[in-house]
Structure formats: structure tokens, C-alpha cells
């Protein structure tokens, strides 16, 4: 026999709901369970098949595990395909008795938040009422106390509590309507509709965490019902959601401020037009399919202040609407960008970031460019110099002194390149090459801010003694007949020694000599060399200067 077994060929089983809220199969299995999320011995799975698997008698559930290696096969058994799995070892057949179909929301809340001794009292009560006669309600006070406690609940964490459905309609709204904050991560919710059933009853819901639930998201545009009117934060990490589904869900959240979509293999396929316009924070970490071109589609969210793009494999970014040195119109409110753990290896990345008008903080740890440990200081300085308005880098504040040092060092470091590329002291003469401008877009601005780098700063000479000698002219302003001498003196020579040298030369006693110097760069300005114990270097005497000797 080949072909797919029809799900209708099975014996019917009933359901029993235990006091603890767990649903077990006893008599009836309906087709409804297909697609449902279940838990078997702590492992999560999706039901794909219900029925008989001959030759073994009795009902079986075919499940596809979340963990693709947990199963024994891919849904086929002895040649017959009962259901399909994505992975060759992703499926198993399990006896319904062993499967936990989950509990409803309210029961989960009660399980967690009601104190144990009160639960015991409840059980006693139930045992008593199973009998024929109605018995006086013992522990009613405690039940009321329990319920009044629940109605005070604002923050509820039901992570991994096997919640699969909303339960009785209105039950949640009656018992705990004041819940503002729900963590429903890693539960057994199977569809967005079920989430809506729960959220509908929580009018004040502001925070909802649905991470690690394999939900079936709406396929068409859902009618706006005002369910999530108060919702500010939505966490959908690891739910397998697609971008189109994100937009559909977000349509029902008019006031959404923070959206977390980590690890979903998201590919941004369209530009959000009426939705997501209020978000301030978007976390797209670990979505490896995102590339820089997709970012253009979210570039016009006008309120977006924080964008987390860690671990998406990005290596470059560009804002084509802005030329060198201009600001882009994209990401107008973006203040904090996180690009840790990516593939950034070019400095052009940071050049582009300078175009963002509101960027104040950046985190870019563990990228190929910034990974080199011995150069972390230089890397940090370069990033600071390249992005002018940055106030915080890698969570460390950039103090004004640090910025000053970084920008001056940057200027000096690329000064020679600038000159070669056509840079001049006189800005009118500048003819900088395209290449240089592209690699160093801020350089001109820095020149305007600090002045163009001087030649003296740019020369880097090897440290030989002859390079440390200053070639100085020696003039005698009062003795017109004496020739102008040229001498080479070390910068570390003290004024006293210079005087001694001159004294021997001129046959004039040391005490009569008065020294000063002038620089050809600043003609007319004479600087006295009065302190005998100081060196020429101390007075900033440089190569080509002229010593003036009087007596």
C-alpha cells in the first residue's frame, strides 16, 4: 500500500481535563489537534498527523520535533507517507497518552502565583463535591483571597509553562484584567489568533514576550480590532516570523515602541508604510539574511532611535542620497546603532556613518577591523575622528579631550597623504583627489577647525644624531662687519654652552653675551634666550632659525 493515509481513518478518543489543567487523551482525538504545539518529556513539537498506523493497533500522533535530530524518521513508515517533515530525522509517532497538549492561560497563572497551601484546600473541596450532597464551601475565603491576589497581578511570567490556548472566553479578563506585562516565551501557542484571544482580555497590556513559540502568523491582513491598543513592547525572537508577517501583526499595534526580532531569518521585503511608524527601538540581531540594501526599506521610520544589527553579517553600508561631507535623509532620528559581531573590515563603513544626522552612540565590537587587540586605541581614535557627532563609542563616553586628541592625531597621521593628494595650507589652492576625499571625508572639515597641518609636523625623520642637529644662522646685529655664520648645534644644547661656544669664537666674555633668536616663519619677532640652564629645544628653536648675538 502506498500513498498518504487519510487522517479520517482512526478510532475516536475522548479528552479528560484533569484538575491540574493538563489535557490527556482518553477517548476522542479530533482533527483540531493537527498543527497544535505539544510537549513530550520537555521537548517541543508540532502535531502533523492523527490516526492509525498499521499494523500496530491504536491511535498514534505524528509529530515533527523542534529539534530536527530528535526523531526517528521523516513522517513515513514502511513505505507509506503519513506526514511530511523538513528533516529526515525530524518526526516520530507517539502515543497520545504521552503527549502534553498544554494548559490554558488562566490555569498557568494560577499554577504559578497561587500559594501552594491554598491549592491544597481547593483540592479538598473538589473531592468533597464529587460526592452527591452539596457540601458547605470550605476555603471559600482563600479562593476569594486568591482571586483578589490575581486581580492585582500586573507582571506575569509564564515562560515554559506549556500554555497552549486562552481558555474559557472572558476567564482571563475576569480574574486578572490588570496584567500589563506578560512573558509567554517558550510555550505551546500555535497561532497568532490564540494570542489575540488572550490579549483581547488584557486591555492594559503593554509588554508581550512571545519568543520561542512557533506561531502561525496571519496570512492576510487581519481586521484591526484594538486588541493591542496599549502595547508598547513586543518581543518575537526566535519565532520564525517573516517580515510580511511582522507588518501584519504590527498593524494591530498602533502605539508600538519597541520591537525585538532576533534570530528569525528575516529578509526585509517591503517598506512599512502605515505600520511601525511609532517604533523607537528595533532589534534585528542574528538575522543573517539581512544585507545593507534591505536597510533602505526601513530607513524612513521617522521615530527610530535605536537599531540593533548585531551578528547579521553586514560588512558595508552606504547612503547614496548624501555626498561626501553631507548628511543623509535616511534614519533621521537614529541615535544609537549597534553593529557588534559583524564583518566590517573597511574604514569606509565609518565614513558613511558620519552621514547620519542624529547618531550619538555606536557599538562596533568584534568586527574584523576592530578585532586586532594591539591596536584598539588607534582604532578607537580613528572611529572618533571619522564620526564627528559621536558622543559614546562602545559604551564609553567620548570626552572632549579625547575627541580633540583623536582628531589632531588623525590629521597628523594622514597629513602626508593629504599633501600628496593635493592639499595646501591655503585652502583656496586645494585640489584634492577624489580618492582622498572618499577615504577621508572629514579631513577638510578638520583643517578648517584646527588649521591645515604644518610641514614641520608632518616630517618624520629617523632618529639619527645628524637629524637632531639644528642648522642655525648666527647674526650679530650690533657688529655690522661680522659675517653671518652657519653652525650645526644639537637641540639639547643649553644656552650656557651655546654662549661658551660663541665666547670662544668671538673672544668676548660669556657674561657679556645676550642671545635671542628669530624664525623666518615669523619675521620681526625676536625671542630672548634668557635662561642659561635651558636648552635650545626648550625655546622651540628649530632648523633654519637665526640666533642673534649682542654684547
Amino acid at each position: 500500500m502506498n500513498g498518504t493515509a487519510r487522517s479520517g481513518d482512526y478510532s475516536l478518543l475522548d479528552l479528560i481535563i484533569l484538575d491540574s489543567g493538563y489535557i490527556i487523551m482518553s477517548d476522542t482525538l479530533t482533527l483540531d489537534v493537527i498543527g497544535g504545539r505539544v510537549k513530550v518529556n520537555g521537548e517541543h513539537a508540532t502535531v502533523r498527523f492523527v490516526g492509525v498506523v498499521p499494523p500496530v493497533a491504536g491511535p498514534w500522533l505524528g509529530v515533527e520535533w523542534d529539534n530536527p535530530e530528535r526523531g526517528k524518521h521523516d513522517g513515513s513508515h514502511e513505505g507509506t507517507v503519513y506526514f511530511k517533515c523538513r528533516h529526515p530525522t525530524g518526526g516520530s509517532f507517539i502515543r497520545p497518552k504521552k503527549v502534553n497538549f498544554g494548559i490554558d492561560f488562566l490555569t498557568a497563572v494560577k499554577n504559578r502565583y497561587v500559594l501552594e497551601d491554598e491549592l491544597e484546600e481547593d483540592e479538598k473541596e473538589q473531592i468533597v463535591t464529587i460526592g452527591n450532597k452539596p457540601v458547605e464551601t470550605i476555603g471559600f475565603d482563600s479562593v476569594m483571597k486568591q482571586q483578589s491576589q490575581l486581580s492585582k497581578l500586573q507582571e506575569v511570567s509564564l515562560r515554559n509553562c506549556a500554555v497552549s490556548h486562552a481558555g474559557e472566553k472572558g476567564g482571563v479578563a475576569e480574574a486578572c484584567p490588570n496584567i500589563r506585562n506578560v512573558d509567554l516565551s517558550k510555550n505551546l501557542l500555535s497561532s497568532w489568533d490564540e494570542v489575540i484571544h488572550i490579549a483581547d482580555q488584557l486591555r492594559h497590556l503593554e509588554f508581550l514576550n512571545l519568543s520561542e513559540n512557533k506561531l502561525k502568523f496571519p496570512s492576510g491582513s487581519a481586521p484591526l480590532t484594538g486588541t493591542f491598543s496599549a502595547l508598547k513592547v513586543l518581543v518575537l525572537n526566535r519565532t520564525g516570523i517573516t517580515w510580511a508577517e511582522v507588518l501584519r501583526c504590527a498593524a494591530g499595534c498602533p502605539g508600538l515602541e519597541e520591537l525585538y526580532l532576533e534570530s528569525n531569518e528575516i529578509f526585509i521585503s517591503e517598506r512599512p508604510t502605515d505600520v511601525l511608524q511609532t517604533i523607537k527601538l528595533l532589534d534585528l540581531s542574528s538575522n543573517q539574511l539581512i544585507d545593507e540594501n534591505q536597510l533602505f526599506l526601513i530607513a524612513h521610520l521617522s521615530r527610530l532611535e535605536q537599531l540593533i544589527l548585531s551578528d547579521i553579517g553586514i560588512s558595508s553600508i552606504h547612503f547614496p542620497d548624501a555626498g561626501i561631507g553631507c548628511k543623509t535623509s535616511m534614519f533621521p532620528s537614529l541615535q544609537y546603532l549597534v553593529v557588534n559581531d559583524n564583518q566590517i573590515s573597511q574604514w569606509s563603513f565609518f565614513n558613511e556613518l558620519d552621514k547620519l544626522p542624529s547618531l550619538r552612540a555606536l557599538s562596533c565590537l568584534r568586527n574584523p577591523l576592530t578585532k586586532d587587540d594591539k591596536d584598539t586605541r588607534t582604532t578607537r581614535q580613528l572611529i572618533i575622528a571619522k564620526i564627528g557627532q559621536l558622543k559614546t563609542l562602545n559604551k564609553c563616553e567620548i570626552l572632549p579631550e579625547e575627541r580633540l586628541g583623536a582628531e589632531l592625531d588623525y590629521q597628523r597621521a594622514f597629513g602626508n597623504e593629504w599633501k600628496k593628494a593635493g592639499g595646501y595650507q591655503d585652502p583656496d589652492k586645494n585640489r584634492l583627489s577624489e580618492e582622498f576625499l572618499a577615504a577621508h571625508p572629514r579631513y577638510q572639515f578638520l583643517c578648517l577647525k584646527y588649521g591645515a597641518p604644518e610641514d614641520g609636523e608632518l616630517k618624520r625623520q629617523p632618529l639619527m644624531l645628524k637629524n637632531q642637529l639644528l642648522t642655525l644662522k648666527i647674526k650679530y646685529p650690533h657688529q655690522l662687519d661680522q659675517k653671518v655664520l652657519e653652525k650645526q648645534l644639537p637641540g639639547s644644547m643649553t644656552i650656557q654652552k651655546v654662549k661658551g661656544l660663541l665666547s670662544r669664537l668671538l673672544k668676548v666674555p660669556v657674561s657679556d653675551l645676550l642671545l635671542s633668536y628669530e624664525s623666518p616663519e615669523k619675521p620681526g619677532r625676536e625671542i630672548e634666550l634668557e635662561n642659561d640652564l635651558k636648552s635650545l629645544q626648550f625655546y622651540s628653536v628649530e632648523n633654519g632659525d637665526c640666533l642673534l648675538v649682542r654684547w
Partner: protein
Amino acid sequence: MGVIRSREGPGGLAEGGRPNCTESTDPLSPSADGIRTGQHRSLFHPEQLLSGKEDAASNYARGRYSVGSEVIDLVLERTRKLASGSPLSSKGAVPGACEVLWQNSPALSAVTIATNHVSLGAEQCGELQGFLIFRSFGGGTGSGFTSLLMERLTGEYSKKTKLEFSVYPAPRVSTAVVEPYNSVLTTHSTTEHADCTFMVDNEAVYDICHHKLGVERPSYANINRLMVQAVSSITASLRFEGPLNVDLIEFQTNLVPYPRIHFPITTFAPIVSADKAYHERFSVSDITTACFESSNQLVKCDPRLGKYMACCLLYRGDVVPREANAAIAAMKARHSIQFVDWCPTGFKVGINNQPPMVMPGGDLAKAHQALCMLSNTTAIAEAWARLDHKFDLMYAKRAFLHWYIREGMEEAEFLEAREDLAALERDYKEAGQSV
């Protein structure tokens, strides 16, 4: 002196009004300006910010004898004024604690913010419960002035608790050469006056900030913000209600087996970077396990080398008693955690439903469940041994000693202090031995 009083509003949060926390900062450091002109200056009453003209120059002797003695009376007078305010007619003044903050660590304002989303009515304390003293071991004021102050406080307020939060000199990161001298001298003189001293060291916090929070080069601001979370957890019981609320006094009763063995280490979990918020969810048992890992400790010390004498677990946020008990039972079963023979149970648990606050724009992600663990372990003797060793190296050569002698100290005091610390090490060793 600073006052923290809490007034319960719905859910334990403050009702309106600005917190009026009054602090007295380092009277010996001319730069209390950081606080006066800082972002959070409105938290401090100007009268309570005392500053002097000279500083203690990293010298215990100056802090305690010469310069400190000039300012101590003024400080005590202000404390008296605060502590003995008129009984309040206003609603619900809860017994508070006084805070004395020293400006050895800048960004003190960070401390006040995290502990103070409460509102205060009048400036005076209704019922003074005790003092919280924040100081460093290594500086002049932190060591010298504090020892003087503690002595005088014991004299005047003998019945009140005095809790210290001390910044212990880090093993490898040093700010002053004479740290060991200052630390040993101050430990000797304050041990008998402090009821409990929570130790924190900069290096441990630095490492946490760098490795776990993605801070490239942690500054004092980053370090203080983390420390403050621990402090906030410890004082949470004073400020908010909870199902298993543990009082400050209760902590001590459970943490301090002998009067001199009062140096618990602080551990905090979960420590998650704000950039990775909600990527991983930590259950109550996860954070409990994390607290027994040395990477979450705020002091560099290896508890596996010693034995636990007592453990206080302060859960904050959405934690139910059942989960807390289950988590602890799981830890007790782990044989890697050794307790001393004479104290088999050893765990005290408190739950406070108010989740920890984080500073906006800070490094830490907001956690809905957090745990601060205070454990008294014999392994801390290793920290003392390190300190004593450094002290011995310098003292053998009488290096830097003249700075202290000049201010009027005698060598005998050094020897006495060193002897006291040796005795402390022996006490720890004895406590760790089997009955």
C-alpha cells in the same frame, strides 16, 4: 548624612515628589563639586554636602588624625540634626537608614538614583534604623576619616546598625601605592564598629563590565552603576514590600556567625548587556546557579577554595517562593558547594517583587527577575592574605612610612593593625575547620 525613607504607593512605588536624599560627601576632598553640579544634584540638600579645604592625600593618618579631626565635629553635628528629627505626623514614614557617602568614587549620584525612586516628606528621619557607609579602603578619607567617624558613631548611636560598602583594593589594579597601609589600618580600627562590611573590588567589576556588558574601557561611571544594583537589592527590603521581605537586621543575624567574621562577598545575576535584552531568558534556577559562579562576583575571590558559612539570597522581581525554593534545593544538592560542618543549612531567602531599575542609557539590560547573593565564605581570607603580603613587603623596608609618622602616628599602630589582621586570617581559618 543621607536619609532614605520609603513611602508605599500602589505596587510599592513612590508617589510623586522628588526624593530628598541628603548626603554628606567627603569633607576632606575639595571637590564635592562633582555632586553639587552634577546631573542629580537636586537629590541632595545643599546643607548636607560638606566639603573641606584640604584633602587627605591618600594618607590614613591625615584622614584620621590631622585633617579629619577638624571636620568630624561638623559632620557629627549634621548627622545628629538629621537623625533625631521630630516625630512625623505625616503618612507612613517607614524606619529608614542613613547614608554616608564618600567621594572616593565619583558618580555617587548614580548610587542615589538607583536606590531612590521613592519620595520623602520631611527631611528628618522618623525612626533611625542604622547607617549605610560607602567608602574605599585605599584612599585617605575612605580609610582614615571613616575609622574616626565609625568610632564616634558607635559612641553616640551604639544601638544602631552600621553597614559598610567597602571598595577593596583590587589585586592587580591599583590607584594608590600606599593602599595596603591604609587598608590594613582601617580594617583594624573599624572591624569592631561595623556590623557588616560588603566588599566590592574594582577589578572584578571592571572585568564584568568589559566581558559581559560590552563596555570597551569601563570608567568609574560604568563600575558604579553595577555596584549600585547590588546595593539597591540589599536595601530593597527597606523600601518596598514583598511576600518574603527580609529586613536589614535579619541579614546580619543570618550572615554573621562571629562578630569579626562579617565580610560577605556580593554576587549579582543576571548580568546582561542592554544590547542583548531578551535574547536569552534566564529562569530563577539559571540566575541562582550563576550566582555561584565567580565571574558574577563583585570581589575577586575563589569561593571554591573555601567553605560557605552563610548565604543570603535576595530575589527581586517576578519570583515566586516555590521557584526560589526549588532553585535552592538544586544548589544544595550540588557537592561543589561546600558548607562548613557547623552550619549545615545556611541559606536565607528574601523575595521582593519590585524588579530592579536600570539607569536609562546604562549598560545593564532590564531584568524581570534578578538575584543578589551575599555569601560569607572563608575564601575571603585569601583577599586579606594578599593585602597583608603587600603590607609586609612595604613595611619591611619602612617604605612611605614617614608620611604617616609626620602626621603623628606611631609604628606601634602599624604593628598592632598587622597583628589584628593576622588574627582575622586565623579566625577565618578556624571557622573553616571541621568541628
